[in-house]
């Protein structure tokens, strides 16, 4: 069963074409790493999947439900308001800048949406949140405000916050790019654990180690198109595409 099916995604920012006909398929429990030089459109692709950006053309089907489709006449049709929110929130998202709510404690960050969006009882949401904090190793920080945490800890809280909504899919937008190198390990470990629990994940990343070891499929993007995709071995050991070969050479230096 496909969890994400995106077909022929086009996206412009004014005159700038950022995505030029992207196809992406993600199966259940699959971990897909999206790599590529900056400006290649990989973050934009991720943001189109959960409607943080609206597309100019194409089809996105999440877990069998159509978020957006395009008619033969080129008319882009999103699912109506509440429907598209429901479909988009099947995906949790983790941002490069964490985006925790600074005026709320760690626990309050985690229960905010379960209580106010999903209308779950506070006690139940709290139990759930504590279990998640345990999982990311930060239970003892439950009553601390985000500013008191290191970047790595903040990002782990952000992962737990997204998981608290019980998403089917997790999207990671360069989750370690704004972290000091010594803090990336703890975040990658949390993501690895999640992958081992068969969470479906799409990860835009510069961490080639993670892409190699955890991803089942690696997608290389440049200039708004998928240049090459395949298993980590295919991509990293036997690259065919010239752009990919150049990219791998440049990051190994």
């Amino acid at each position: 069963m496909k969890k994400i099916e995106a077909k022929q995604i086009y996206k412009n920012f004014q005159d700038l074409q950022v995505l030029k006909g992207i196809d992406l398929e993600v199966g259940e429990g699959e971990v897909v790493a999206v790599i590529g030089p900056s400006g290649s459109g990989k973050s934009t692709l991720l943001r189109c999947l959960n409607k943080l950006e609206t597309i100019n053309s194409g089809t996105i089907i999440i877990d069998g439900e159509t978020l957006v489709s395009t008619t033969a006449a080129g008319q882009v049709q999103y699912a109506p308001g509440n429907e598209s929110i429901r479909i988009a929130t099947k995906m949790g998202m983790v941002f490069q800048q964490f985006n925790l709510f600074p005026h709320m404690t760690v626990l309050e960050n985690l229960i905010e949406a379960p209580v106010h969006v999903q209308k779950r009882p506070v006690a139940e949401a709290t139990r759930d949140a504590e279990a998640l904090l345990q999982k990311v190793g930060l239970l003892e920080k439950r009553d601390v405000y985000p500013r008191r945490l290191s970047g790595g800890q903040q990002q782990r809280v952000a992962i737990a916050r997204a998981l608290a909504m019980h998403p089917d899919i997790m999207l990671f937008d360069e989750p370690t790019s704004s972290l000091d190198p010594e803090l990336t390990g703890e975040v990658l470990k949390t993501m690895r654990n999640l992958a081992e629990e068969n969470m479906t994940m799409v990860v835009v990343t510069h961490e080639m180690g993670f892409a190699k070891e955890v991803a089942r499929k690696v997608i290389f993007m440049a200039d708004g198109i998928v240049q090459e995709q395949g298993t980590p071995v295919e991509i990293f050991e036997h690259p065919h595409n010239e752009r990919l070969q150049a990219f791998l050479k440049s990051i190994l230096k």
Partner: protein
Amino acid sequence: MDYILSIIPQMLMGTVDTLKLFFVTIVLSIPLGIFLAMGRVSAFKWLRSAISGYVWLLRGTPLMLQLLFVYYGLPFIPVIGIRMDDFPAAVLAFVLNYAAYFCEIFRAGIQSIPVGQYEAARTLGMNYSQTMRRIVLPQVFKIILPPVSNETITLVKDTSLIYVLAMNDLLRTTRNLVQRDFNIMPFLVAAVFYLVMTLFLTYMFNRLEKRFSRYD
């Protein structure tokens, strides 16, 4: 000393009028300012322009002029010509004027919240009103506390402008006493009254700022 004690009851009466205007203005102009600010940053261009025009007009003319216009000018406007008592007229002028200032303060506050906060709220399924109420505005309140405190203290003193409507606020009461008794002591007492009010406000805002700083 006996003289001071003898004028205090009258001056307290004047202070009551001053405080009434102060509280009604605060209670009405801050929420109005928040709504205007939300319109000022909304997606509707006509609404944004209309509110900028409003702010420009109300900040660009003297409050005293607005006060005189509402009280003496409005009755002569064709069709809507309304004649108001002095207190409602004063409230109307003060609320309209202060809402314009609060609008600008809140607009700056709202715009200083990073876009990532809205995006995080959105990926968690929160709608616009939940995002504003629970995520954006609580952070805005912390940022805008110092300028709001400033405006509020200015308002205490600005209330003395209702002097021109012949209302017996603290300032006019004082002035009457000075003229009646040929004694400038009431001026000093009035200064102390104003200082006590602003001191109290300063104290309250400091406490609020301390409360909001807990997440730094």
